[in-house]
Structures are given as C-alpha cells and as structure tokens.
C-alpha cells in the first residue's frame, strides 16, 4: 500500500469508456447489426403451469419469411437426477429455464422461438405454433406452494420422503440457541415477508449471434460474463467452447440479473439452422414476465438478549421463492442475516421453495437483504425494549476482527464497528426531526460475503510507450476507470496513457462473472501482477542497455533509474524510450496473469434513513438518507459513492413500492415500468455517503467489494424509520400507501 504515491488511486478520473457513453457511440447488446441479419422472437406460455403435450411448428415453418424454428428438442437436455453445477447455476435448471421442457412452469416461460426476416413475421410465426397444453393448478405464493394440497411443480421432487415443492434447505449453527434463549432477559420475535423484486436494469436482454458455415459462432450480448455466456451456450447447444467467441457488448445494467442467459442459446440454434446472423431482444414485458427477479420470502425471527443489550441467541427461519426451478438465494439469506453480530448462539435455516413464477436470478447481494430484514427490524424493537440507542445496541454486539461468525468464518480486520461509530457521530443522526409532520428515523446494518475467483489480465506496452490493459470482466459501473487508476499509479505515468479494454472469450483468459462485488477486487490483482511483470521487464531492458544487473534498476515516476550510486551513473530511461528500444532485448513488452483470487473477505455497512409519512394518504417519502460503509480502499471514490447511492435507492424501491401483482390465473398484472414503480428522480433526496477505508490486508491496494452491501440494510432502515414516525411495526413489505393507510386505520380503531 505505502509503495503508492497515490497520484491516481483515489482520484476521480474520467472513465475510459465515458465519451462513448455520453455521445451515444457505445454499443450495447441491441445496438449491433450484421449484414443479412434476421430477427428472432420467443413464443411464451400462456399458462402459469401446464404439461406440454405436443408442439407443432409446421405452420410457422411454412410462413413466408421464416428461416428457422427452435424448441426444447433442439436444446441439450440435462437429466434432473444428475446435478451439473456451473457457477451458482445448475445446467439441469438452466436447460429448462431457457426453454420449457416437460412443463411450462410460469406464465411467460419460453416454449419455442422463431427467426424470420422481420420481427413482425417472427411474431406472426410464433402465433402459428400449435402447442397442446394440459393446464394444471398453479401455486404463486410460498404458502400456496407449501399447502398440503399444493400442486407439485416437479413430480420427482421430494422432501422428507413426500412429494414437495421444497427443493432444498441450508442451515448455519453456532452454539446452542435454546440455551441462549434460556439465558435471555428479553426476547423479541416476529414474522416477516418481503416481496419478489426485479433487478430493474434499463436494458432488456438482447443478443446477436452469427454462425459461419464451418460452425464457428460469434455472440454479441449484454451479460455479466462473456465466459458464462460461452460456457452455457456451449453446454445447451453442444457446440464446443473453442468454436464460440462471446463478445461482451456494453451492458445496460445487470445487478445480478445478467449472470444467466435466456436468449443466447436460442439465437445460437436459430443462427446455426438458418445460416444467418440472428438478433433477439426482449421487450420490457418479456423481461418482467420471464427473467429472474429475486425471491419473495417469509421468515420467523427470534432474538434473546440480556438487560445490558448483549445478545444471547438469534434464530432465523426463512422460506425463499425460487420461481419455477430450484435455486433461491438461501445461502445469502441464512449466511448474511447474523453476520454483523458477535453472538454466542445463532441458528439460521432456509428453505428453497419452487412456485409458478419466473426462475429467480441473482440480485445485488442475493438473499442478504431478505436475511437481514427481520433481524434488523427486531433489533430496532429490542433496542426500544431495552431503552438503548439502536446503534449502541449494534455496537454492543458488533462483529470485529477475530469474531467467529455464525455462518463459519473468523473475521479478519474489517470496519463494521467503524460504520456504526461514524453513523452515531454523523450530523444526520443528530439532526432534529419534525414530529408534527410524522417524520421518523431508522437505522440498520448489513453484510455481504464479497467474492474473489478467476480473473485474467494482459498489460501490453505499445510501441509508442503507452499502455493497453485488457481484462475479462464486463464493466457495469466504471471498473475500467479503477483499473486505469491502478495501472497508471503502478507505472507512474499519466492516467490518459492507459487504455482499458474488456476482452472477449477469444482474446483474454478465463474470467469469472461481474458479480459478487468481485470485479475491481479480482481484476486489480491480476492487473497489478501483470503490471509488476511489465515493470520487471522494463527494468531488465534498462539493465541490458546500461549493462548492469537488473536488480540494480528501479522503476520510479514512469522511468527506469539506477537503484543508487553504486549501480552507476545513467540518465533515466522513460517508458517511451524503453518501448522504442524493446527489440534490443527480448522484443515486445507485455505480461499476462491468470489467477483464482482469494482474500475478498466480507463487507459491512450501516444506513440512516429519515422519512415523512402523509398520514391521510399513507405515502412514505424518504427525506434524508446516509450510507456509511467500509470499502477497504476507494480506488475511484466517485464510482464507489455511486454503488452506495444506487444500492440504497434500490433498497428504498424494494421497501416502498416495488412488487409484482399476479392475477388469479397466475399471470403478472403489472409487467411494465409504469406499474412496477421503481423510484424516479422526484421520489428521492440526495443520497449521502460516508466512505470508511480500512484497507483489506489481503489485497495489494486494500480493495474490498463495494457493489452489494449497500442494498442490504436499506429495507430495514426504511421500515424502522416508518416505525419511528408512526409507532406501527410493519413486518410486511412493501410499505405501499394502501398498506400504510390500512394499518393506520386499524391502529385508530384499536385506540377507540
């Protein structure tokens, strides 16, 4: 760390891809075209749950302008009894997610797809596909799916020896919670629900796939990982990975929702069959009906504590909706729920429950906000019972270096306590509230695992002495700028001399997803390693020119210098000079690194939220919001703040208005931005940020992940603020106006 002069690290540089993005030049997935390109459309299930008895595509194929049709028969089948994990997914479920196989499991599930000369012809052809369905009863909500007479989505799925919609469970235990509750002076408990919410990226899923006559395939698509696109498309189509080149288009938001694929394998088969480049793009309605939100949940939480506030035990039971195929983020819920606290006894247990909704996908700290919600709400209640400040209660029990977490690890140096102390000291926490206007304040904390994993980078010195860095991670939030800051810092050169590109699967080594808050953490490790190798090469070149020992050359301020007087008297050699003389020794200068990175460690944050409630209309407005968080090291503070602000606002949306409304037929009734109600600019105040930097000792620049933690505390911070304003404990989200007004009515009735 201290080797840094910090000329660029910590600076608000202009991102390398910035000008393209403010001028409309940046090419997102739907922006690319190819000569001879045709259009693909998907036929989707009109039923929430149905057996697919037959599909007849003959009329569609006969329509003028139709070039190819794909059904599940064209997609590689992964038998349900043989697990086939790929990252956080399982190909058994992915093959059924991209195309319904035995059954349509939700309204909007893909049944077939057509490629034709125009989108309109493809749509018309879809309507000509004859599908015979045997419609089955459906289960939308968790309780529907767990009822004794619930329709069973997967006949082969059993739990405790009986057919069930429970796909799996996961638990963490530390100590003995029963003994802990027995020791408690105070016990608080409650039942909570959160609703499924969509990631809400503004760019719908889209791709363009071109297949040559020799079978070589190029995919342009918007995803959180071109290598994931390549691997999944290969597995689902049987085309070898070496024949697929997946090019990462600029991505218009993902938040986890683009860590899986929907259209690419369909377009791949259509392109192969038709011999034409095929473009596919979802409509917003398709995104809302068929792509993955995060789970809805219910939970039962119980906390016991001594009079002095020390927690003796916490127990949390969770049920998370997976959608039609297994894979709810149970791990995030049961793993993160208790992670901020140093408690002797803890137990969390979660169920993965299938129901007739679109299969969930990752959403920013998947499962963690669900896990934290009930716990952070009950801590608020506990603080009130103990007459303690809610931040003091958290401080009393805060995890710190050396704490053995309920979910397993023993924590290294990290800054959770600092986030609480900063919150307590913050102006916001001391600012007065106008109680006559039903204003209230809430706080909450949260944790996310963060992730390391595979990354690759290549750092090349150009012949004119500048730098091109290639990494393998789609840049969603400015990571190229962070990489350029680090590389410029290490090389001691001007930031603008470093160009950062995202390589495709053919031009850079394997790099895992842009997800898990891992991109800057992992890619800066491989970029640092590569840059150091380059510096070593540059020093060796200078040594050769000077005819001295390479160890007698140091790299400083963008030039090679003799290490000291003993090394000899030579004029420094700049990067430009060395680049121009590269062929005098060894040739082109560049280095690559491929690593499976470790040491990401977890991240913690605390939020303060002020609200005002219109008690006649039930409307909750956020007045002020502050996000405090240990980010390790803010390589590019503006984009760190951006993560903190964006995450908080997604939490505000989740807490206040976002939810899916289903009709009685199991169909989403609000598949549009109009009625899904994500926060708009006029709903919000500025989002204040407070960056705490406790460098991660396991990272060369001290980086910790920052992308996901900022969503985790928000649901409870908003809800606790509403309690403070109204004195009503809402345990069910969202806090939409009808729900708030109804609860106020009940309170009034009870008072009368």
């Amino acid at each position, binding site marked *: 760390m201290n080797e840094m002069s910090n000329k660029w690290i910590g600076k608000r540089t202009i991102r390398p891809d910035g000008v393209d993005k403010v001028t409309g030049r940046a090419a997102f997935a739907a922006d690319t075209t190819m000569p001879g390109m045709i259009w693909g459309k998907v036929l989707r299930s009109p039923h929430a749950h149905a057996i697919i008895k037959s599909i007849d595509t003959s009329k569609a194929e006969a329509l003028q302008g139709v070039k190819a049709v794909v059904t599940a028969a064209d997609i590689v089948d992964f038998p349900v009894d043989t697990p086939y994990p790929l990252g956080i997914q399982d190909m058994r479920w992915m093959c059924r997610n991209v195309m319904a196989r035995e059954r349509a499991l939700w309204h909007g599930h893909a049944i077939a797809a057509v490629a034709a000369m125009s989108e309109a012809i493809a749509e018309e052809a879809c309507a000509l596909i004859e599908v015979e369905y045997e419609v089955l009863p459906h289960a939308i909500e968790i309780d529907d799916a767990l009822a004794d007479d619930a329709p069973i989505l997967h006949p082969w799925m059993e739990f405790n020896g009986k057919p069930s919609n429970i796909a799996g469970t996961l638990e963490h235990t530390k100590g003995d919670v029963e003994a802990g509750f027995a020791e408690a002076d105070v016990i608080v408990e409650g039942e909570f629900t959160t609703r499924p919410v969509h990631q809400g990226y503004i760019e719908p899923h889209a791709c363009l796939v071109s297949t040559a006559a020799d079978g070589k395939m190029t995919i342009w698509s918007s995803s959180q990982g071109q290598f994931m696109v390549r691997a999944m498309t290969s597995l689902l189509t049987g085309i070898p990975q070496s024949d697929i080149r997946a090019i990462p288009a600029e991505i218009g938001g993902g938040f986890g929702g683009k860590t899986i694929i929907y259209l690419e394998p369909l377009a791949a088969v259509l392109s192969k069959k038709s011999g034409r480049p095929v473009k596919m793009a979802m409509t917003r309605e398709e995104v809302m009906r068929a792509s993955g939100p995060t789970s809805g949940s219910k939970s039962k939480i119980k906390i016991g504590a001594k009079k002095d506030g020390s927690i003796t035990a916490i127990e949390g039971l969770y049920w998370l909706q997976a959608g039609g195929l297994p894979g709810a983020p149970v791990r995030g819920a049961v793993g993160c729920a208790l992670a901020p606290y140093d408690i002797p006894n803890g137990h969390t247990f979660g169920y993965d429950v299938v129901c007739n909704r679109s299969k969930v996908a990752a959403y920013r700290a998947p499962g963690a906000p669900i896990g934290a919600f009930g716990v952070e709400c009950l801590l608020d209640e506990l603080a009130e019972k103990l007459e303690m400040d809610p931040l003091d209660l958290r401080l009393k029990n805060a995890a710190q270096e050396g704490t053995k977490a309920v979910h397993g690890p023993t924590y290294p140096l990290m800054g959770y306590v600092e986030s609480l102390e900063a919150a307590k000291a913050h102006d916001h926490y001391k600012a007065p509230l106008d109680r006559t206007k039903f204003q209230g304040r809430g706080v909450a904390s949260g944790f996310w695992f963060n992730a390391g994993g595979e990354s690759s980078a290549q750092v090349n010195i150009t012949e004119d002495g500048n730098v091109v860095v290639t990494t393998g991670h789609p840049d969603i939030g400015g990571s190229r700028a962070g990489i350029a800051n680090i590389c410029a810092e290490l090389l001691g050169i001007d930031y603008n001399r470093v160009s950062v590109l995202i390589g495709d699967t053919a031009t850079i080594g394997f790099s895992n997803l842009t997800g898990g808050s891992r991109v800057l953490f992992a890619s800066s490790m491989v970029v640092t390693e590569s840059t150091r190798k380059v510096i070593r090469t540059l020093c060796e070149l200078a040594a050769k020119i000077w005819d001295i020992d390479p160890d007698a050359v140091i790299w400083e301020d963008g030039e090679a210098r003799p290490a000291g007087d003993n090394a000899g008297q030579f004029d420094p050699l700049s990067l430009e000079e060395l680049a121009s003389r590269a062929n005098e020794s060894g040739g082109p200068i560049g280095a690559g690194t491929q690593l499976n990175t470790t040491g990401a460690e977890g991240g913690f944050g605390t939020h303060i939220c002020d609200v005002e409630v219109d008690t*006649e209309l039930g409307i909750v407005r956020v007045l002020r919001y502050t996000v405090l968080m240990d980010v390790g090291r803010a390589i590019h503070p503006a984009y760190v703040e951006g993560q903190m602000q964006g995450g908080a606002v997604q939490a505000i949306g989740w807490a*206040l208005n976002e939810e899916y409304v289903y009709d009685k037929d199991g169909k989403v009734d609000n598949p549009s931005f109009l009625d899904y109600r994500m926060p708009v600019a006029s*709903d919000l105040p500025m989002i204040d940020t407070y960056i705490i930097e406790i460098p991660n000792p396991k990272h060369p620049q001290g980086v910790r992940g920052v992308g996901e933690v900022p969503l985790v505390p928000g649901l409870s911070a908003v809800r606790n603020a509403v309690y403070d304003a109204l004195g009503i404990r809402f345990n069910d989200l969202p806090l939409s106006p009808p729900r708030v007004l109804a609860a106020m009515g009940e309170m009034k009735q009870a008072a009368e």
Partner: protein
Amino acid sequence: MTDTQYLAPATLDEAVSAFASANGAARILAGGTDLLVQMQAGVVKPGLIVDVKKIGELTSVEETADGGFIVGAAVSGAKLEKHPNFGRVWPGALEGLNLIGSTQVQGRASFGGNLCNGSPAADSVPGLVAAGAVATIQGPNGRREMPVEDIPAGPGKTNLAPGEIVVSFTFPPRPAHSGDAYLRMIPRTEMDIAVVGCGVNLTMDGNTCTAARVALGAVAPTVRRVPDAEAALIGSTLDDAAIEAAAAACCAACSPINDKRGTIAYRTQVAGVLLKRTTAIAAERAKA
C-alpha cells in the same frame, strides 16, 4: 399481418371523411401517448391512423372576446403551458393535463387524446369537467357540442358517434374570484396512473362560495361529477362542516374497483382527503 395506413390530413373535413369511412378500423392520432402504447402491446391494430396534428383548429389555442378559451383537442400540455394566459386563468385544468406521464409525454399528450382514450383515471378529465369545458365535435353529420362530462361512457369507451372527432374544448368566461385545482394520489411522485384524481373549480364572493364544480377520477367506470359535494360547498364559507360534508359526498360517490393500482377501501377514503386538499388550493386561488 394487418396493414396499417397513415394519413395526416390538413383539413378537418378530410380527417372526418377518412375516419368515418374506415368503419371503426381507424384511430385518431393526437399525441399518441396512449395509442402507440396500445399498438406496442398488440391491443390495437388500426387499419388507418389519422394524424390530426396538421389541422389548425386542433392544434391552436384561442382566447375568446368574452374571456373564454378554445383549446384545440390535440394541443400538447407543453404547448398549452407556454400560453401566456391559459395557465393563469385555468391553473387546475392545466395541472391535470401536465400531470400526464413524464415531461416527454407532456410534449405530446393532449386534452383530446386523454379524454377519448376513455380511461377512468385520465388526469386531465376531472379538471375539464370541473371547469365546465364543452367539447366541440365534428362528424359525418356535422358539428355539435357536448359537455365534457357526457363524453366518457366507461373504461375505453366514449359517447362519440361513429366517425366523430373531438375538435376543441371551450372554457367558459371566468367570473371574478374564481379558481380551480387538480390533485391526484399516486404512490410515487410522478409517472403513475392516478389512484384517485380530484378536480375542483370554485367561485367565491368574499368568504362565501357561490359556485362549485367537483369531479373525481379513478373511482368509478368514468370520471364522475359529484353534485352532492358541489351542493355542500355552494353557499358555505368552506367551513369545516361544509368541507367534511363535501368530502363525505365524494366518498359516497365512489364505486371503484380493486386492482393493481389501489383497493376499493383505499380509493374511497382517499377521495375525501383529496377533495379537502384540492378545495383548499382552489379557494386560495379564487381569493387571490
């Protein structure tokens, strides 16, 4: 595929003739902010689109000699907002129009389109009804006038005869000490469809209310005038008792549905709250 034709006639006669001869397969294009959404969703596949924005009478704003206004049915909210006098005289009617959708939508959306789309939640319609605006309508059988409140017939339906086009809205001359206002309840601050909308138009004589028109949106199959609320306000000093009575009349006038945007109970309760708030603003403006 259904072939769609597009026509942008320069005269009203041409428009009426084309519209009428399409026998129901045609749609009028004013701002298009509803029509294009419906086409995108596949709900509507018009055989003919008649763009009326090249017709002067539909796109102009005229002040009459007696102090009234004639606003073309296709005049956008953005254009009407820039009119030097309309918003001063009819702030509530303008508010309703300019609560439709985003700034982008307001660049296109019009009174005529909003009314003829037939949504019970149409933001601009309660203000028109409260204002006592009268629609001028032209059809194959000539021209006629119709009070705005008589036009909506139910969700997506109007009482216009086949082939008829709404040409303009006539706002009556304004007595001194008059004011109007429109408020709606939405969960967010913008971009939502009204869960309840309320337009109030008052004339005051000192502290006494001498004339009142009240209209509610999104609480019944059509935008609804509320005569009982008007009666409660007229002759009163807008005292608490009168306001409470008017609010109660608004709640009683509701026959809403439960849907994704609100519940029966919520809408009914909110109608009364909005009456109070909207009346307060209208009264303030009337007294100013």
